[in-house]
């Protein structure tokens, strides 16, 4: 009997406790920087698209919600012709981000993407591409890759020595 009254008293005291509820639209929860939310395509520090349309994200995606078509610009730089993510399928697992060799595709802490129309949940490249570097600053894939594209030949990348002249016997 005493324990029942004690329970009631302790429950009553909860009236003066701090509320646990976060009044969501007015007051937002803190989301950590690595929170897996809306997917974006980022740009390198020079403003070029990071995505090289390698299709690894689409292959890694467990629900097949990513579709893209690779193409090349005249200098030989690869980029996606279109890039679609179907967010009504996406499970925000982050595998695409892990698979991406160029830090192009990233998940950001934003989940407010509700729509009244399901078709609107298919995001095109225009919707995905942002004018920034996302979580990884200063990384430029084509500056470190050993591949020759317009304006940069083999051996001219950062941390790269010029190719060995195999026709020469000199050390």
């Amino acid at each position, binding site marked *: 009997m005493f324990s029942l009254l004690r*329970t*009631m008293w*302790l429950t*009553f005291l909860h009236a003066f406790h*701090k*509320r646990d509820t976060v009044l969501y639209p007015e007051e937002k929860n803190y989301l950590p920087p690595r929170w897996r939310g809306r997917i974006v395509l980022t740009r390198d520090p020079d403003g070029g698209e990071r995505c090289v349309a390698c299709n690894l994200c689409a292959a890694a995606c467990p629900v097949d919600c990513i579709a893209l078509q690779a193409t090349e610009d005249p200098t030989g730089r690869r980029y996606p012709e279109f890039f679609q993510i179907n967010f009504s399928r996406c499970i925000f697992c982050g595998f695409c981000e892990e698979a991406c060799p160029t830090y192009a595709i990233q998940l950001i802490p934003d989940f407010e993407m509700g729509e009244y129309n399901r078709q609107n949940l298919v995001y095109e490249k225009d919707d995905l591409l942002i004018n920034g570097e996302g979580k990884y600053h200063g990384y430029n894939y084509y500056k470190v890759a050993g591949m020759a594209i317009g304006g940069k030949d083999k051996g001219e990348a950062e941390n790269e020595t010029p190719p060995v002249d195999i026709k020469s016997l000199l050390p």
Partner: protein
Amino acid sequence: MEEATSTYLLIIGGVLFALLNVAAGLIWVERRMLALWQDRYGPNRAGPFGLFIVLADSLKLFFKEDWIPPFADKPVFIIAPAIVMASVLMAFAVVPFAPGIVVADLNIGLLFFLAMSSMGAYSIILGGWASNNKYSLLGAMRGAAQMISYEVFMGLSLMGVVLMSGSFNLTEIVEAQRGLWFFIPQLLGFVIFFIAGIAETHRLPFDIPEAESELSAGFHSEYSGMKFGIFFIGEYMGITLISCMVVLLYFGGWLGPDLLPPIVWFILKVFAFISVFILLRASLPRPRYDQLMEYGWKILLPLTLLNLVVTGGVLLWLGE
């Protein structure tokens, strides 16, 4: 004569109007209070302080499909929720809210209240039976057993008050408390009546006929739409009724210092007891069915009889 009738009708209409609104308002009150004790806010979006949730809830209930299962016993199924509503509303007829504000000042008001609250058991057993569903029937059987056994000492615990005031008339019982509210000499009687009252309204922790975790929803599993709503409202009115009775019998009804009018005192006290009902729901777990029965018959009934004998003995001793 003409004037008397019109005031009479006014009182009836006013009491009905106020009660139905209070019962609906309790939806909001209960949800807000529960939230308060669970560190939440409760409904706070629609209207000021979320008050329009009452409107939204009742509109929802009205527009829901009112489905009667094909396997149900149709007439009984329909009449069962009406019984709970009618019996509780009838019981309110003898409740004096303030001097003069009473529908029927019966000289056996207390007995009438007991009779009407026993009628409530019919709605449970009929509703559970007519649903033709195992869970409903189990809930109904539990409910009937619980209500009948708790009624025994609910009535007996009131006899202490009747002995002390020498009347079954609720107005006279309140008047008899001018010197001392009865909950001091009748503390045991008050506690037992309150416990029996919780069991009578089958509120948590004694919501064994409903017991969501065991019986889905007990006797009203098959009810939907406004029929369910009437069970719901009936339960809230039951809470109000038991709170009114506790206030009338043990806490001096409308009596109180002169700074507020009598009706305000009455409402304040009733609201305090409604809050206790909600606090009980927020804090206590549900006992097992056999524990409930054992508690009733082995502890509360002997205590009630003891209370009755001691009260009678003391009154006789003082009378001599």
